[in-house]
């Protein structure tokens, strides 16, 4: 099937599936710990457990596994990389080229689908989890005009380019991102009657946090500092839709930001006002706490433990805001435990289901509908705070989560005529098992690393009984396994 599908391949329509990675064999396993710990380490590093990731952990040991994922540029990502460049050509386009595409919604869709395919199939899994965090932190709603194609540049040049860099560089890149400037209206922030939107969210959501110690006067002063930060219009040739400082729109008077004097500056030196503000914010104690808390929440748990936040803020201070160092710090603690369980958000649940079951995806657009139904389609969150990362935000709508498994295992996303869509071949997953308990053991191994508790195993068995269950019952059992309480957490 894979060969046939690739022969049909065209640039615009993905027809080949990315094959699952085969587990590596290790003569002398280096991982020391229980299966529960192994599952947690893989689950907290990736978008979901796979036999391949578990084999890497066994081969490299815990610290080696972490170090591998901390340097994503050294992980070959051939299959996924080829898939993305073959099917989503807009991802590498300049802003000018993006603006010339016939359909900006097609540009948006390519970004959304690439994001989902990377979450499921990239080997640079930790990188994708970090990208997920910063995408929410610097949220931009993709449905606005101009933003609908410029988010592609922001995702590439701001988020992905700086995901493992320093926070100051990430912040600075975001502040000069036309998608962000448009989304938060700084493109029309001019001397005289400034627009406060970006200035406020910069402090509230990107750096200090709402209780970080700024006032309404600071918001107004920061807005003045960023007057003239905009982008080149469509007629600017290759510079079109890139950052521009328009000195004629800049407020040249003195400003005071968080007690710091920003001196009067004229002409192009006025750009320095905003640069000064970003430096003040990136070096502020409230920012260190706020960013540390965000990373702890993302990787450790819903209710960040203050001591871990403090030590992570200490890493920020010691390393000049090095994101890789902070993530490593939090993950080492998360691996070691005790670690509170975290509830998967819908995209994470869908990705982990597809990963654990070696799903075959030949029509990534089919990934969009279930996430829309669950309220978690990437880049489709309109307010600037990003998708919530709290327990209570996602526990209410269980039905949409159950429907992931139900629809996948009933081939709702598979077109039997075109042979395109999303499907799972359960035969290699269950091997020769024919009894209910035998099938459950295989599901347990594939999806839970053998850590499923007896009560949940018994429940799954009850659905499969009597023995010799039919292929469709086995498929449904996989779908129900993805709906088990244990699979909702990681």
């Amino acid at each position, binding site marked *: 099937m894979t060969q046939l599908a690739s022969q049909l391949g065209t640039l615009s329509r993905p027809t080949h599936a990315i094959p699952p990675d085969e587990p590596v064999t290790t003569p002398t396993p280096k991982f020391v710990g229980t299966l529960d710990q192994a599952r947690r380490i893989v689950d907290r590093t990736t978008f979901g457990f796979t036999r391949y990731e578990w084999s890497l952990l066994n081969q490299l040991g815990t610290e080696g596994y972490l170090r591998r994922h901390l340097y994503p540029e050294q992980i070959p990502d051939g299959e996924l990389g080829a898939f993305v460049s073959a099917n989503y050509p807009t991802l590498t386009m300049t802003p000018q080229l993006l603006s010339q595409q016939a359909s900006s919604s097609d540009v948006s869709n390519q970004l959304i689908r690439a994001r989902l395919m990377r979450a499921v199939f990239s080997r640079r899994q930790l990188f994708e989890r970090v990208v997920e965090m910063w995408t929410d932190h610097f949220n931009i709603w993709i449905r606005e005009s101009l933003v609908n194609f410029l988010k592609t540049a922001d995702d590439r040049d701001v988020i992905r380019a700086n995901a493992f860099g320093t926070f100051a560089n990430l912040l600075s890149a975001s502040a000069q991102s036309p998608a962000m400037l448009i989304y938060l209206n700084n493109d029309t922030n001019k001397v*005289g009657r400034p627009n*406060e939107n970006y200035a406020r969210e910069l402090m509230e959501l990107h750096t200090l946090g709402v209780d970080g110690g700024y006032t*309404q006067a600071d918001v107004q002063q920061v807005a003045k500092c960023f007057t003239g930060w905009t982008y080149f219009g469509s007629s600017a040739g290759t510079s079109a839709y890139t950052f521009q400082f328009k000195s004629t729109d800049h407020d040249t008077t003195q400003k005071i930001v968080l007690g710091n004097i920003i001196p009067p500056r004229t002409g192009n030196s006025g750009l320095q006002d905003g640069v000064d503000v970003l430096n003040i914010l990136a070096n502020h104690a409230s920012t260190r706490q706020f960013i540390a*808390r965000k990373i702890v929440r993302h990787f450790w748990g819903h209710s960040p433990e203050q001591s871990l936040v403090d030590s992570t803020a200490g890493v920020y201070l010691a390393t000049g805001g090095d994101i890789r160092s902070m993530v490593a710090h939090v993950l080492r603690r998360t691996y070691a435990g005790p670690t509170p369980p975290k509830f998967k958000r819908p995209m994470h649940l869908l990705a982990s289901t597809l990963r654990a079951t070696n799903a075959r995806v030949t029509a990534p657009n089919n990934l969009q509908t279930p996430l829309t139904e669950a*309220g978690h389609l990437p880049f489709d969150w309109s307010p600037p*705070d990003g998708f919530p990362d709290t327990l209570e*935000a996602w*526990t209410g709508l269980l039905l949409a989560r159950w429907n992931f498994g139900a*629809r996948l295992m009933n081939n709702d996303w598979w077109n039997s005529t075109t042979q395109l869509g999303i499907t799972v071949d359960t035969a290699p997953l269950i091997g020769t098992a024919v009894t209910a308990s035998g099938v459950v053991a295989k599901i347990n191994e594939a999806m839970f690393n053998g850590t499923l508790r007896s009560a949940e195993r018994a429940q799954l068995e009850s659905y499969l009984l009597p023995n010799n269950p039919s292929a*469709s019952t086995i498929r449904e059992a996989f779908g129900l396994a993805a709906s088990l309480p244990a699979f909702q957490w990681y």
Partner: protein
Amino acid sequence: MSEHVHDACACTEYNRLSRRQFIGWSGVAAAGAFSAPAWMPRVSFARDFSNRDVIVSIYLRGGADGLTLCVPYNDPAYYTARPTINVAPAGAPGGCVNLDYTFGLPPAMAALHAMYAAGHLCVVHATGSTDPTRSHFDAQRFMEVGKPADPTIFTGWLGRHIASVAPADPTAPVRAIGIAYQLQQQLVGASRSVPVPDMTTYTLRGSSTTRAARQTWLDATYDLISVDPVRAAADNTMSTITKLAQVNAGAYTPLGTYPYPPTSGTGASSFSKAMRQTAALIAADVGVEAVAIDKSGWDTHSAQGSTTGTMATHMSDLAETLRAFYEDVIIARNKNVTIVIMSEFGRRVAENGSRGTDHGHGNVMFLVGKKIVGGQVKTIWPGLSSLYQNLDLQVTIDFRDILAEIVSKRLENQALATVFPGYTPTFRNIAMV
């Protein structure tokens, strides 16, 4: 939501309240059901139990501009502050629709005037939260939990209302629905409450042959294995699937003469869809007491418009839908319903350089119902010359005064200290008993 250091406590509060209330009211429901004589239809039993209104709580997300929603057209300061995005005075071409010779509705909301004239619409002006925050997320949160400036409280005012009164219909398995992907914070803490993004697709997918078996399996599994709030959510999900199948909102035929804006195809309105489904739910008498609905798009920092443009589009959608719902549910079906509309804050009095407005303070609320003291703009008008922090409309009526009066008079709940802790409300004569 924005980051607060106290969210761990909040979760504990949630677990404690939701589980306890769930168990508590399950007991009440069972007792109620069994004490009714066998010959008595459940519906009439429910009717005897309570006459409280169903509350439809509509939240305008993003900070809707109250000075456009209800225009102080006699105040010259308004036209000075809004040179490019004002609505002309009543009587002028393209001007607002007069309400009381001081305030007027923008032309995009003219559809509401008939409700005002009938005495069923009250506009409250210069209201809101007195907390100084201009953060969307803090301001929404503070209003929805019903206690400004307290980052530790997590349950919502409407959730605590539901949790502190017996069910209007003791047999009702679902008491509150949020038309949303995430249950709105105002409903958190309500026993048997659930978010439903779309009532017409709220079913377990997959093979119809095995659907019942899989649903039973999920119910049993979550009861057996899961912990709160997930277990309670699973219970609520099961009841809601059953109830919504009975409601069959997809086949609903409105009774009113005023059409709902299109709910599918080009120009489809998700707000109209949500309100139409709410109408179906209320018409079906399944005992749901509260529905929360969000309408977003009000964060108009740029190109706000007035009689046309971004905000006019949203206002028209709001008003046309409200009117259709009113004619359908409140007039034609004669259902006891109170609608409350609010937003986290108003916007800056002076427009900005982008022909928009930045985050402000005081705002409007809209109240609709037969037992609302309508046909009035209820305000202690502070004027536009003396501004909050020299920037924004002052708040002269705390939003809790309005909500508490509705909770007391229309929702028949006198436990106001539970619903609005630490606050003694002043009733403003906006509702009848």
